[in-house]
Structures are given as structure tokens and as C-alpha cells.
């Protein structure tokens, strides 16, 4: 306990230097701008920024990326409130009550509430990150190939199921496609090159960063440019800073949303949007005034913004301790950490224990910067919304080219970006979610190596995958995930629960 506190103090102290604070300021402002601009997402921002931080020291690079990530998730609430368009997918739930509040002439208050609840959401997530991550890393030391196989499979499946499409099937297909992308190139057990078709550049496999820049950058440009939309920005004439009472009368909602966001963040590949929607739904369910939801409920806005920001911090729990990305942006962070020689996973707490607490410190500094800029630069940040999409997207494409080229300095990676952009756009148009695809690319190697290593250890016997205690539990959860995604089963289970609840109430 005291060791943890000492490491945390050390982590915070490490970043209290002029250079670090300078990075916090510009990266948070950049993140806010990215979040505010519709069409630019947090994942896209982080993926593009990896290039810019390439030559920085590892701690400063991750600090910068974390500030952009958190800033973008928070910044998206501005657009949700003022334009009724979520700045990032994470802020979709915030439009439901944020925009009606703005139309009632309370845009300033809505932004103040969103800012404060974002900060509180991050704080709840940080609290759980500091508590759960070391324990989980310790527990994960027990994991072998069999357990990691199930974890990787579960990650792709749950992400596919919860990524929010018209059917979980599309999520699963996206996950399988991601896993197949990871199969390209040299496999790690026997050094055999798979699916390279004689193309030398494919020997090393498909890098995550160009693929992400394509799927989240170029595809987003295509989506944005598909139609010209004209939005009307609500005006801000009221006060921005909320009173203590306006926030803390909903303390139950804040804690509940923070915990829900944390839980969603821990589940691999399930991102901020799910955290936000789940928190919003729970707040409506338990609210004393559920009829106000969707018509400008302050509680609804607080729930949505606490939920999505808690996910950001909590997503770091599986990311750092198991190397399973808690969200799509966290997948890019894993790639960035590997570029900078930081190896996330159970060994992180052994090899580099201070890093976990440095991440906690990064999140603390980023959320404080969000709070300060969010409450003070309201009018200035709104001006960003005046930038026409045609002018912005042209520049963003050039950044996509730079972002995909600079890491390995091969034009091949730029072509990868283009292919992933076009394919990603088509898949999105057909409601195939992107998060499972990304998770598949990240977890493909882990799944492959642990399946075959496990089989090698057991001389081809598959029973240890089902009989080892932790493996058996993970297998059961994975199976349950698949079974529950079947409409017939989920309908029946829901029906049984409903009957049980009714019996309980009447009996």
C-alpha cells in the first residue's frame, strides 16, 4: 500500500518539470481540438501523433499521446452539446441531453457539467487503475499459454459483440478479418512467412500504425466528405463553471457511472462509447426524474460524460497488465509503447514497476489540464468549429501519409494505409465495427503463438485448454459470450430473468 503511494508520488513528481508540463499543455489543447472537430476521433489523433512523438524520450511520448487521447474524448462533448453531433463516437450519449440544454440557453452550464463530470470520471478510473492493475498483473503471472489463448479469443469476441452494430455477427467477422491480417508475415514459432505471395515488404507483417491511420484516419476522411453537412452552432451566453451543488447532488450517478465506465474499460476492446451509453442507461433506470432524460437532463449528461472518461483510465488496466487493449486508442498506445521499448504485459510490474504509476500521473495531469482549459477557453475552443470540413480534411490526409510513412520510412506502409482506409470505409458503411478489427490485428500473434505453444507443450493434446482451472473459467466465459450473442438464447434468458423478477415482486 505505502509502496504504491510512494511510487505514485514518484510518478507525479517525475512529470513536474517544465518540459513535461509544456507537453501536457500543447498535447491536451491539440486533443481538445481533435475531439471538438467532428470527423476527427481520439483513435485517429493518437495514431497520427505516434509519428510526432517518435524521437521523444519514451515517458514524454506516452505522456503526449495520453493527453491527446483524454483531451479528444473530453473535447468531443463540446460538439455534442453545441452541434448535436458527437465530436467522437464516445460522446454520442452526451448529445441526448447536452444539445437540449444548449437549446434551452444553458450551453455554458452543459459544458461546465460535462467538463467537471469528465474530470470526475477520469478520477474514478484512475483510482481503480492504481488499485486493480498491480493486483491483476500479479495474478496474470499465473497465466500460461492456455490462459492467454482464451484471453485473446475472449477479447476479440467480446469486442465484436459489444462494438455496436446491427448484429454481433458483423463484429465477429471484423474480428476474424483482423486476426487474419495479423497472420500475414513471419510467424514467431518456426519463422515461416505466411501469405506474403513473394512480396518482400509483407515479410515483417502489416504494421498496426499504418493500418490504424488508414482505418481511423483515411476512412474517417471519406466518411466526412461523403456528404456536406451544415451544422448550426448553439450560442453560449450563460455561465460555464457549475456550482458545487449542481454537480454533487448527483454523486450517486457520478460514482455509478464511474464504476460502469471502469468495468467497460477493463473489458478488452470495448470502448468509450459503450461506457457512455451503459452509464446513461443505468442513470435513467435509477433516476428520480427519468422523464427528463433526452430533454435536457443534467443527470443524463453527467452520467454520459463520467462514463466515457472513466473508460479511458480503466482501459489502461488490461492494456498495461495483460497487453490486451481496453479500447481502440489503447491498441495504438500499445504499439507506441513497443516502439519506445516499453513492453506491456504481466512482466511490466516486474521489469518497470514505476511505469504504471507514471501512467496514473499522466492521466492525472491530462485530466487537470482538461479541467483548466475546458472551463477557461470556452469561447476560443468553439471557434474551431468554424473551420470548413473541406479545408480541414485536405490537411488531415497529408498528415495520414506522414503518419503512416514516418515510423519505418517505407512507402509500402502508405499503401497499407490507403488500402485499410478504403476497405475500412466500405466496412463502416456496411455497419462492420472497427474496434474488433483492430483488436484482431493486435491480438492475432498472441492467439496464434499461445495456441501452438500450448499444443506443443501438451504434445498435441487439447485438454489443458479446458481443464486447467483459470483456463476452464476463461473458456466458460468465452462460450457464454458466444451463446448469449445468439438472439434466440438471449431472448429466452431475458424472459426467464423477467419472470423471476416478476415472481419476486408479486410473491
Amino acid at each position, binding site marked *: 500500500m505505502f509502496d504504491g503511494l510512494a511510487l505514485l508520488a514518484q510518478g507525479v513528481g517525475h512529470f513536474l518539470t517544465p518540459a513535461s508540463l509544456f507537453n501536457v499543455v500543447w498535447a491536451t489543447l491539440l486533443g481538445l481540438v481533435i475531439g471538438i472537430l467532428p470527423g476527427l476521433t481520439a483513435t485517429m489523433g493518437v495514431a497520427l501523433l505516434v509519428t510526432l512523438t517518435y524521437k521523444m524520450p519514451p515517458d514524454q511520448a506516452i505522456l503526449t499521446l495520453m493527453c491527446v487521447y483524454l483531451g479528444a474524448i473530453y473535447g468531443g462533448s463540446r460538439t455534442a452539446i453545441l452541434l448535436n453531433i458527437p465530436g467522437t463516437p464516445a460522446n454520442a450519449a452526451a448529445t441526448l441531453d447536452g444539445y437540449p440544454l444548449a437549446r434551452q440557453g444553458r450551453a455554458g452550464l452543459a459544458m461546465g457539467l460535462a467538463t467537471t463530470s469528465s474530470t470526475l470520471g477520469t478520477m474514478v478510473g484512475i483510482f481503480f487503475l492504481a488499485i486493480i492493475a498491480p493486483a491483476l498483473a500479479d495474478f496474470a503471472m499465473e497465466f500460461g499459454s492456455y490462459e492467454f489463448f482464451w484471453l485473446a479469443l475472449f477479447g476479440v469476441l467480446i469486442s465484436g459483440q459489444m462494438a455496436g452494430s446491427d448484429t454481433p455477427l458483423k463484429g465477429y467477422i471484423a474480428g476474424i478479418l483482423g*486476426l487474419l491480417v495479423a497472420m500475414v508475415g513471419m510467424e514467431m514459432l518456426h519463422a515461416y512467412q*505466411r*501469405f506474403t505471395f513473394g512480396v518482400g515488404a509483407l515479410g515483417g507483417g502489416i504494421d498496426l500504425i499504418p493500418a490504424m491511420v488508414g482505418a481511423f484516419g483515411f476512412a474517417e476522411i*471519406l466518411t466526412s*466528405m461523403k456528404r456536406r453537412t451544415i451544422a448550426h452552432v448553439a450560442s453560449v451566453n450563460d455561465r460555464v463553471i457549475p456550482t458545487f451543488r449542481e454537480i454533487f447532488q448527483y454523486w450517486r450517478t457520478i460514482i455509478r457511472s464511474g464504476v460502469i465506465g471502469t468495468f467497460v474499460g477493463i473489458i478488452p476492446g470495448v470502448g468509450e462509447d459503450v461506457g457512455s451509453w451503459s452509464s446513461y442507461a443505468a442513470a435513467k433506470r435509477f433516476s428520480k426524474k427519468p422523464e427528463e432524460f433526452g430533454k435536457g437532463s443534467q443527470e443524463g449528461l453527467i452520467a454520459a460524460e463520467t462514463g466515457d472518461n472513466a473508460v479511458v483510465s480503466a482501459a489502461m488496466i488490461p492494456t498495461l497488465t495483460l497487453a490486451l487493449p481496453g479500447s481502440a486508442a489503447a491498441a495504438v498506445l500499445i504499439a507506441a509503447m513497443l516502439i519506445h521499448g516499453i513492453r506491456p504485459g504481466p512482466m511490466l510490474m516486474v521489469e518497470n514497476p514505476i511505469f504504471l504509476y507514471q501512467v496514473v500521473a499522466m492521466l492525472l495531469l491530462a485530466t487537470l489540464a482538461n479541467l483548466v482549459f475546458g472551463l477557461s477557453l470556452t469561447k476560443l475552443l468553439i471557434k474551431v468549429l468554424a473551420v470548413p470540413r473541406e479545408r480541414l480534411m485536405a490537411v488531415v490526409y497529408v498528415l495520414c501519409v506522414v503518419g503512416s510513412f514516418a515510423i519505418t520510412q517505407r512507402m509500402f506502409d502508405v499503401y497499407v494505409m490507403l488500402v485499410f482506409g478504403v476497405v475500412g470505409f466500405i466496412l463502416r458503411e456496411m455497419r462492420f465495427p472497427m474496434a474488433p478489427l483492430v483488436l484482431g490485428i493486435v491480438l492475432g500473434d498472441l492467439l496464434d503463438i499461445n495456441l501452438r505453444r500450448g499444443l506443443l507443450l501438451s504434445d498435441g493434446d487439447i485438454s489443458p485448454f479446458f481443464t486447467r482451472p483459470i483456463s476452464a473459467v476463461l473458456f466458460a466465459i468465452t462460450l457464454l459470450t458466444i451463446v448469449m450473442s445468439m438472439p434466440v438464447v438471449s431472448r429466452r434468458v431475458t424472459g426467464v430473468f423477467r419472470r423471476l423478477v416478476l415472481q419476486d415482486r408479486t410473491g
Partner: protein
Amino acid sequence: MEFESGERARARADLLTAIVLIILGLVIFYLSWTMPRLEERHVHPATIPGLLPMILGLALSFCGLLLGLRSWSLEAEGGWQALGRALVGRPARRVGAVVALALFHTLVLVGWLPFWAASMLFIFAFIVLFEVYMTDQPVDLKRSAPWAIAIAIVAGWGISFIFEDIFLVRLP
């Protein structure tokens, strides 16, 4: 109404996607099945390189089949016509124009011109095309062009300067 038409088009597009996925899955299965099993290196049969791709290929085909069945069972009257309209409509043309510009920038201009010059040309062409020609509310070329030139110069030079000189990153 447009939303419903989009849903109907998507239901039919799902059917086409399902066919592509089934074929792709089977091709991947075949390629994995015929992948060298490295017997000469005494590799254990349970650890052959094609094992997971083989399973994934089958899983893709199976999911494709389920998607196809789902799409087949959905009521989508006029879905094919809606899909056809979506593929040739104005939004599709805008997307096609962005892809064409991006390909021209990346495959032709980059390498032929210095990166900053290629980027300036791309940014200028992009802004003018979408502000003056491919839009419902065209802006006068005399108004759009000066802005496009200014943004192209500032962004083209700025990106090169920030990445190459400040962050020491090499550009294409």
C-alpha cells in the same frame, strides 16, 4: 424514408459481402491447408504454421454463411435498386473523387515532386474541388482559390517544418 432505403440497400449489400466472405474464407482455408508443414524440420503436426489461419478461414466462411442467411431472410423490397442508387449517387462520386485525389498524390506526386510541393498541390486541388465544383452550395472560384492557396502553402510548409525540423521525422 432515406434511412429505410439505406437499410434495405444494406441488407442486400450484406448478401454480396457474405458471398465474398464465404469465398475468401475457403481460399484462406485452402492456402493454409496447402501451406508447408515443415516435416523436414520435424515440426510437431499440431504446431504447423497453417493451423490458426485454417481455423480462421473456416470461421470466416461460417460467419459469412450466417450473414448471408440473415440478409436473405430480411424483408428488403427494392433493396437492389437502392443499393444501385447508393453506388452511383452524389455521395459515392464525392468519395470516389477523394480516393482519386489521394491516389494521385501518393502514387504520382510523392516521389516525383518534393513532399512539401506534392502536399501543397494536393491541398489546393482538394479544397477547390470540394468548395467550387462537387458541392450543393458552390463558392465562387475567386473566393475559394486564394484561401486554398494560402492553406496549401501554410500547411505544406508547416507540416514539413514541424515534422522534419522540430520533431526530426523523415518525410516521404
